[in-house]
């Protein structure tokens, strides 16, 4: 196996909040010791419910948020320790597409200025070369060149997301993080953007970290999938392996909870009780044990480590060992 394209080791992020009257700072761990590798040219899917830390992880990987511990290797350099100037160079190779198409474009910029910004920051090419580059990118995401003079609020949600993708590809990065990139779009537009992302991956040989709460979307897009719960990866495997041979009880519950658009399916509903525990006072041991029907005495005491259960199928659950 070649050197992994992105290697994440024990990445941790704690947030502190001064809760109301109490001066004493309480805090919580949003990302708790996460390790995973992303191979070049792969789509690594990261799925989990809101509050599980997947978006925080994406900001940490791009160092838009400073981590409290761990490392992120891009090739063989740990970008968390890079000085500012070198970091700026590395950023050309790692870009991000956000969820809300209305929030990720500066309302005061024309489309042309939006596309030019990355090129200006890195002083890329001359005026003519930049114009050509923008035309090429607009063609790649099938946006109409005449719209360059218009403002973001004059575009539809789908068009705006295409613009975000075009902007992120301006410096031909190798690695693209999609943080819920299609979640805010209507279903018919979502399909267009998903196909577009896959086409661009093949055309430019990109590597994706695709983050979403929608299991079906992640399954469709990803080659390998990590399931996150309460700041930790609880299960990680190749897509087919994961869905054919689910091991972790939480992933199983997630799978059964996804509403299946087929009235004939008699899918038995394995309904999880209550909700995600509060991050401020986390349950001891495995964070899922309060909701897990297999929870044993050990689960409440000791938090399980990710272990290989064969064929690269990693899972963090005591049930499999005993």
């Amino acid at each position, binding site marked *: 196996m070649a050197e992994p394209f992105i290697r994440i080791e024990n990445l941790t992020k704690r947030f502190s909040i001064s809760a109301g009257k109490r001066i004493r700072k309480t805090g919580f761990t949003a990302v708790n010791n996460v390790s995973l590798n992303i191979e070049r040219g792969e789509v690594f899917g990261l799925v989990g419910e809101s509050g599980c830390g997947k978006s925080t992880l994406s*900001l940490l990987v791009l160092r838009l948020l400073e981590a409290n511990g761990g490392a992120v290797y891009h090739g063989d350099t740990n970008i968390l320790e890079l000085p500012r100037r070198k970091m700026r160079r590395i*950023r050309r190779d790692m870009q991000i597409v956000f969820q809300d198409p209305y*929030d990720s474009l*500066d309302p005061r910029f024309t489309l042309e200025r939006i596309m030019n910004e990355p090129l200006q920051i890195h002083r890329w090419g001359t005026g003519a070369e930049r114009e050509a580059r923008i035309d090429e990118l607009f063609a790649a995401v099938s946006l109409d060149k005449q719209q360059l003079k218009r403002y973001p609020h004059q575009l539809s949600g789908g068009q705006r997301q295409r613009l975000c993708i075009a902007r992120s590809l301006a410096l031909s990065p190798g690695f693209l993080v999609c943080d819920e990139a299609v979640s805010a779009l209507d279903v018919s537009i979502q399909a267009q953007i998903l196909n577009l992302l896959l086409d661009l991956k093949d055309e430019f040989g990109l590597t994706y970290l695709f983050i979403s709460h929608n299991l079906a979307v992640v399954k469709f897009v990803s080659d390998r999938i990590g399931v996150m719960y309460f700041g930790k990866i609880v299960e990680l495997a190749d897509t087919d392996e994961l869905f054919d041979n689910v091991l972790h009880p939480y992933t199983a519950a997630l799978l059964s909870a996804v509403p299946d658009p087929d009235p004939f399916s008699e899918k038995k509903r394995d309904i999880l009780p209550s909700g995600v525990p509060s991050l401020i006072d986390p349950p001891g041991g495995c964070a899922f044990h309060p909701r897990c029907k297999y929870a044993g005495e050990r689960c409440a005491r000791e938090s399980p480590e990710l272990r290989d259960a064969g064929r690269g199928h990693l899972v963090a659950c005591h049930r499999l060992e005993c």
Partner: protein
Amino acid sequence: MEAILKNKFFVIGGGIVLIISLLVLFAPLLTSYDYGAVDLPNKQLPPGAEHIMGTDLYGRDVWCRIIYGGRVSLTVALGSTAVALVVGTMLGALSGYVRGTLDFVLDRVNDVLMAFPMLLFSLVIGVVLGSSMKNMFLSIGIPIIPMFYRIARATAMSVGGRSYVLAARAMGGGRMRVILRHIIPNVLPHTLVILSSAIGGAILAEASLGFLGFGIPQPTPSWGLIANDGKTYMFSHPWTTAFAGAFIALTILGFNLLGDGLRDWLDPKIRTAAKR
């Protein structure tokens, strides 16, 4: 742009401000009197053909002093608000986006500034620096800074969290670039909305200072001073103060309406964007 012309607040407010500015600007054409010329025999004449707004206790033509006085009051008001706008917006945007110790310090300074009622602050600074035109910019400008600072800081904080700022940083944009390209252009519209009500506040401050006798020294007539001239004989010869006060009120009303018009025109854009 044409939408704003349909906004009635904007039109009425703009109209008032325009008319008064023209009057003040073309004062020499509108009156032949000399605002400083004392003419005791004709003191305190009621408004009449000769003196459309009567004369004050030194026999000076009130109408003439008012339109000349407008120059002082308006320049002071516009000057001091401009100072406050620039300082307040810059510091607010910086402190709202950068946060950390800079924000803590600036916020405390703002708390201190807010501890002084506007008029009190102008009074004390005016007395200390002396009330020349230049000093008035500071003594009225400084207490207005918190108005701009607070709005700029609040907006900068929310803009700082928006994805397009994160995207700019992800592209390698430095902190200064983000502030100049993204933070300030998105904070400015919010501060501009309160600019005209701030000008109204500045005119009020200058007039109150003048009324209390701490305005710009004689004989340059500012509206406040004219009001002060007339105050002692207010009950027998009210027109000096009445007309001066009316002009002050009308100008402030004009700027306030202008501000309302701007806010309505700008708000739907901001609110819908935020609500989406």
